[in-house]
Structures are given as structure tokens and as C-alpha cells.
């Protein structure tokens, strides 16, 4: 298996606050890896650094062997590394189908591609993915009119539509009705197995991440605290202390 994402000694400060200090993680292709840690430990900042939302102060990041440390968000997204947002962002005034349509991958887009109309294959795929997340019946509704949970599913479907190689998910189950979480976990696993998408997932819901992830990284106070398989992490005293605020 090849290395999908390699983060080496990445640090990021905001003014006086050290959000990430010297963090190194590695994700292999096809894995589902979890990223946990108490609030304020720097998880989302790490995501932002990886996808090029802001420059890092130190360290390097490579994706599929390619150096992406200095690249910006749109470029990295076109390379196949996508992220979803904690607050769930979709295009509110456009219908679900339009949200899907605009999520078509545009790797090699010449100038004329801007004037293309939607192909039947693309429409079929959009409907297929909306069906996959259970939003098919709502496909002509405006994105902004969906409930929060439905928007989360739409965002996920849009990410899949973009045919990413790797997906960074920021708290995919936050705010979701507990009875529907199993369905979401199932879909994440299917996306990983059937579509071959590597996943790095930030999660606060321990039940979810312990069942979903093969490996887990734990951050605390901006630093990497522990790494290992779910069972090991669950029993790691340092992790427990970090969450309970002992350290």
C-alpha cells in the first residue's frame, strides 16, 4: 500500500496561540483513520493546514507523493483531496441536484468546459449518489431548505460526486439524530470499500470512531499525544487524562 498523505512536523501559530506543534501523521491508501482529541486540541487547524486553507509555519505535507505544503485550497481539491466542514457548508440557494452538478470534478478543465451542459451520465451519477445518502426524494429542493442533518448528507454526497482520492471529514456525525448515525457509518464504510476513498475523520463520538477507524491519532494541546489501534487508544491513560482534563 502506498502512502496517501504524509504530514511531517507541521506547526501553526495564530498570533500567540500555538494551534499545532510539530505534528506528524501518515495515512496509507485505503485506510480509515481517526483524529480525536479534546476541544481546542488543534484538529480542525490541522485539517485547514492540510487542505491549504492557511499556510503552515513549519513542516511539510505531501499527498500521493506530491508536495502540497504551499498549494492553496482549489488546487489541492483538484488533486483529489477534499474536506467537509464542521458547520456543514452547501450551496443554499441551489437545488440538491444543482449542488451535485457543480460538484463534478474538474481536473483538466479547459476554457470551453465552462460552457458545457450537464451530461446524462453526470445526472445519473448525481441521482445515484443522492439515493446512496437517502436524499433522492428531496433532490429538487433547495439546499438551504433541508434540515441540518440532511445538509450534512448532501455535503457528503457532493464530496463523493467530486471523485476524491481522499476525504477529510470534520465531525461527520455531529448534530445527527443518534438513530441515524449507524446509517452514516455504514455509508462511510461503503464509500471507503466500494469507491476506494481514503478517509481521515475528526470525531468526538467515541462509539463511532472506535467502530469506524482502523487507526487513531489523538491530539492534545496542539501536539500529537498518542497513536494506535482503537482498543489501544481507548485504554491509553494519557488519552483518558487529556479528555478528562487531568493533563
Amino acid at each position: 500500500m502506498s502512502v496517501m498523505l504524509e504530514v511531517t512536523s507541521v506547526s501553526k501559530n495564530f498570533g500567540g496561540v500555538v494551534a499545532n506543534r510539530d505534528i506528524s501523521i501518515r495515512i496509507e491508501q485505503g485506510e480509515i483513520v481517526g483524529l480525536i482529541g479534546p476541544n481546542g486540541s488543534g484538529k480542525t487547524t490541522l485539517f485547514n493546514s492540510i487542505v491549504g486553507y492557511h499556510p503552515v509555519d513549519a513542516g511539510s505535507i505531501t499527498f500521493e507523493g506530491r508536495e502540497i505544503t504551499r498549494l492553496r485550497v482549489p488546487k489541492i481539491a483538484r488533486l483529489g483531496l477534499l474536506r467537509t466542514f464542521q458547520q456543514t457548508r452547501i450551496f443554499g440557494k441551489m437545488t440538491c441536484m444543482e449542488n451535485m452538478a457543480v460538484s463534478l470534478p474538474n481536473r483538466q478543465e479547459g476554457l470551453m468546459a465552462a460552457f458545457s451542459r450537464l451530461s446524462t451520465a453526470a445526472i445519473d451519477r448525481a441521482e445515484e449518489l443522492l439515493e446512496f445518502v437517502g436524499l433522492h426524494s428531496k433532490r429538487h429542493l433547495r439546499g438551504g431548505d433541508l434540515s441540518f442533518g440532511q445538509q450534512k448528507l448532501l455535503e457528503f454526497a457532493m464530496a463523493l460526486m467530486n471523485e476524491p482520492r481522499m476525504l477529510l471529514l470534520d465531525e461527520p456525525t455531529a448534530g445527527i439524530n443518534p438513530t441515524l448515525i449507524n446509517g452514516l457509518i455504514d455509508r462511510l464504510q461503503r464509500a471507503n470499500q466500494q469507491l476506494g476513498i481514503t478517509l481521515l475523520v475528526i470525531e468526538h463520538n467515541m462509539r463511532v470512531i472506535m467502530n469506524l477507524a482502523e487507526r487513531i491519532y489523538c491530539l492534545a494541546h496542539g501536539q500529537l499525544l498518542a497513536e494506535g489501534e482503537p482498543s489501544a487508544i481507548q485504554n491509553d491513560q494519557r488519552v483518558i487524562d487529556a479528555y478528562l482534563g487531568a493533563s
Partner: protein
Amino acid sequence: MVENLILLLENPVALLDLILQGLMMGAVFALIAYGMALVWGVMNIINITQGEFVILGGFVAFYFSEWGISPLLAVPMAALILYVIATGLYLTPIHGLVFANRLRPWLLAAGVFVASAAGFFVSGASLVPAVKESVANWGSLAPAVAIGVDSLLVTIPVMFVVGGGLYTTVLRHIVGRDLFTSILATFGISIFLQQFMNEALTADVEIANHGLDTWSFVGGDITIEQIRLIALIFALLIGVLLALYMRKSRAGQAIRATAQNPRAARIMGIDTDRVYARTYALNAAICGSAGALVAMIWAVQAYGGLVYTLRAFMVVIFAGLGNLVGVIVAGLGLGVAENLAGFILGLEFQIAFVFGLLVVVLIYRRIRLSFARKVLS
């Protein structure tokens, strides 16, 4: 252009003079900018009407220099006094008891505003010559300096009232909406005021006569008009007073609290509606005082307000909201830069320079932010 630049570099005294003039100019800009920052920070409104308030204040000063005291003043003054009462009623705690609903003070204020506007219109055309005649008969009643200072003292409360009235009738509906809405709405008010002033007051370019001297140094190469120095001192004084007001007084604290978190302020019992009205009126007063200075130093004309608005905007975005010292520095800097540009590029390009600079500042700010990318845009 290059010749002018060389001329400056060869004449450090001339350069110093230009810089001094620019600093004194800049003090006024900083004042106007502070008012704009206030409204922007507290109410999330970009007040395009800022320049018109300045011009209006300037006109009040002009008229006071023209009139002295005259019986014909009673017509608009009475309307204004009523207006003060109406706005005052709105701003006092009594209104909640006296008026059963919130609509009546709105209507009353609107009614008085329209009445005084009508009064201005009707008397406007014949007002100025009649007043001039009256002053000629009665004579100037105060020494020049006193008139100049009087202008300032009257301008401030008058503008406070005008600003409060505008808030009550229009802006209250704009607060809390997006900034683009505020730009359009205040633009509408500004073109209203522009023609209003043009028709009701005068279309001419007017100066308020202050009758003060000019000091000259270095054999006439450096001149400091007393009025400009007074303007600088006044600007700083008003700035300090404002800073103290915001920091020490209850009302000022209420304004700051509302700016930071309106909802929390309301929960704490602050009447945010009043705070907004007061803030906007305060801004109008600041502009009014700046305008009085402008009328005394330069000139005012009904349609000449936009430049002041955009200068203020430039200072605010350069300094950043909530940065009082930055606003002062940026304001002074703009004054100097503009004055130098006027000399080097030629007066006909001075305004082009101001607006071109604004565009450059915006782009520069964007580039700087995108390099830092510290904040989600």
C-alpha cells in the same frame, strides 16, 4: 510631475510646509473617519451619507457666520427645537410610558422632519437675501472668533438631532441587515440630502468666515493658518473627549457592549434601539463639527460630500475597526499623502489620487491578509 518632485526634494522647507498643511488636513479626516468607524463597528452600517453630514455641518457654520443673530432664524429654529423634543422624547425613558406603542414617536419625528424640511423649502429661496439684509441692518453681533466657535457649538447639537432623526425614520430598518443594504440605503439618503441642500440652502460654494490670522515662518515659506491649527486642536480634543466618553460614561459603555454583542446587551437590559439612535446621532454630530471646520478652512458645496465619505472609508479600512490610534495615524497620513500628491501630480489629479489610493489600499490589504491567512475570510 517629475519636475515637481525634484522641486520638492530641493526645497525641504516647501516640503515641510506641505507636510504640515497635510497633517492639519488629516486631523479633520481622522475625525470623520472615527465617526464612520463608530457607526460601522456598532451598527454594521457603512454610512455613505457621512460626507453629506459634513457638508450640512459646514452649511450650518456658514449660515451662522452670515447671520449672527436674526429674527428670521426663528422659523427653522423653532422647527428644529420641536425636532429636538421629538428626538429627545424618543431617546428618553419616558417614551415607553407616554406612548403606548413605538410607532408614534416615529411618526412624530417624521412629521417634524418633513415640516422643517418644508419650512426650509418655502423659505429657502428668499431666506438668504432677507437674512443678509437683516444682518446689514442689525450689524454683526459678535467678534469673528466667537462666531467661529459659536458655529461649532451650534453645529454639533444640530447635527446630533439630524442624525437621530434619520435613524428614527430610516436607519432603524437597516441595522442588522447586510452591509450592502446599508451602502445602498445610505447612498439614497445622501443623494436626497445633496439635492435638498442644493435646493433649500444654496448651490454655491460657500466659506464660513472665521476672521482669524495666519502665522508665517521662515520668511513666508511656511504658513500656518490659525484656523487650521485650531482645527487640529479641536479634532484632537473631540477625539479625546469621545474616547473618554466611550470608556467612562454609561452610555459609552452601552455602545461598546452593543457593538460587541447586541443580543447579550439586550439581555443585560440595554435598549439597543436607543444605543443605535444615539450612536448614529453622535456620528452626525462628529461629522457636523468636522464640517464646521471644513467650511472655515476650505469650502463646502452641496454635491461635494462623496470625497469625504470615501476618504473616511479609506482611513477606516486602513486602520481597522476599533483601532482609534490607527484611525488618527491613518487620517493624518492620508492628509499628508493627499497634499503631497496634489503638488506632485497637480491639483486636477488630487481627487483621482485619493480614489486610486483607496483601490490600492484595498488590494494591498487583501494581499496581506491572504498571505497571513490567519482568519477565515
